[in-house]
């Protein structure tokens, strides 16, 4: 395996243990229309990306996204609370800036999309956070055929025109059975999820 490929892949996938930080600015998003308390999620209104870096002096982080996913969020605008959140991802729609890296990430070294073509998240508990609009969402994340319960910080903003939700957190890829190159590539992968932003998707040829 050429080093560059290893490194890139590493860069993409990492994760950590649910140490998460809210960083993405909520006001950068365009509120998604909520009809009857529910909004449908798709790449044209939701950004879903992951970033992973290498270990060592040259982290060279790489970004990956999924071109196809569907989901839904339910919220109560009057009480400004989240009620449900679910996402089903077509793992084969994974894209990165580099075509060969995309192929490697889909291979059995990482996502093994032939064997595990679906990924997803189903929220189970929505606890209010310290500040208004902040929540701790606990749910089942399925990756690489492994389902684990995770808790992630979520920031939600309710406006007259709809809802925006932002979450950035890290997962430990090895906990989901992706143990390739743990000595070269970060095991922590940062995942960013923004309802209200269009997803960036790379073409199959990269870029």
């Amino acid at each position, binding site marked *: 395996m050429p*080093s560059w490929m290893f490194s890139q892949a590493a860069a993409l996938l990492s994760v950590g243990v649910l140490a998460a930080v809210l960083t993405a600015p909520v006001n950068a998003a365009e509120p998604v229309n909520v009809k009857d308390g529910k909004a449908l999620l798709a790449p044209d209104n939701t950004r879903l990306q992951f970033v992973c870096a290498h270990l060592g002096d040259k982290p060279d982080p790489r970004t990956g996204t999924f071109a196809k996913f569907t989901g839904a969020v339910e919220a109560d605008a009057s009480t400004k609370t989240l009620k449900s959140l679910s996402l089903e991802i077509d793992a084969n729609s994974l894209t990165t800036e*580099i075509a060969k890296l995309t192929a490697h990430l889909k291979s059995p070294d990482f996502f093994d999309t032939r064997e595990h073509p679906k990924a997803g998240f189903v929220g189970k508990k929505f606890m209010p956070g310290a500040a208004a609009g902040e929540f701790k969402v606990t749910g089942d994340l399925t990756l690489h055929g492994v389902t684990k319960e995770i808790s992630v910080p979520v920031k939600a903003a309710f406006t007259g025109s709809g809802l925006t939700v932002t979450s950035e957190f890290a997962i430990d890829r090895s906990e989901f059975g992706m143990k390739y*190159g743990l000595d070269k590539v970060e095991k922590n992968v940062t995942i960013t999820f923004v309802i209200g932003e269009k997803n960036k998707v790379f073409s199959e040829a990269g870029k």
Partner: protein
Amino acid sequence: MFSLDFLLKGVAAPAGAAFVVALLLRRAGLGSRGIGAVAYAAGQALGTAWMLSGSGDWLPGRNLQWVPWVGVAAAAIGPTVVATGLATVERWLLTIFAAAAAAFVLVPLWPDLWPPRLTSIALFALAATVVARLLDGLVRRSSPRLIALLMAGGSGLAAMLIAASLSLTIGEAALTTAAALTGTAIALSFRSDELSVRGLCLPYTLAVGGWCYVTAIEPPPPAPPLVALLFLPAAPLVVWLTAVGPVSRWSTRRRLVAAALLWLTCVAALSAWAWFSTEGGDEEYARLTQPWHTII
């Protein structure tokens, strides 16, 4: 690229086991047609045991997990195919049966598989049968030592290409097969033994052909299959060009050199095809593939 632990347990151990088993079987004076196949099976079994002990799940399940088991099973049939007293048609039928059984577990159930599953099974079985039978015929008309070494060399190259072009996980597993074949080939090269090498042709074809096939079809659409890999297991067949025609009248030494050069040219061309067919071709890719980029 490969860890020291893997090189010791996944490469050196299977190669050493195959080598020792081949020597012991020869010393024991048992029938020679099973020596190569049994030695390979011993090395492959040890390599598979290492794979099972690691993080990867190599119990037969999805198509690629079947390859090492197919190799071991083929080692049981390989010596039977070359048993004396069998008619040619019986040898072909046995080979077709083994190749079809292998195809049944190696061809996946993916809905987007192209060609469709039944067609793929037929094509794999046909190709494997032809390659195995032509290799068997080649061993009888050329140097068994050379063919054994070319099979081992080709399997090692295939494993490296698999690791470099798609997946280190599959590449490592394929390298255990290559290690077992190499240990066997080295042991068989001490004394020219046509039957031992002939018995190895079927397990070589199904195991190495299996690794190349499962890797070639692994990239999900719209990525193209790695077609070049499909031809690699057949590379030793170029030696036929030195076994028939005017070259066959050359001196033994000149024929062997010509055969080796032909094989090297063939595998170099196939390797280049396999490698360049997976390139991205953009600036970022070019930067990353420069040799001074981080070495794993």
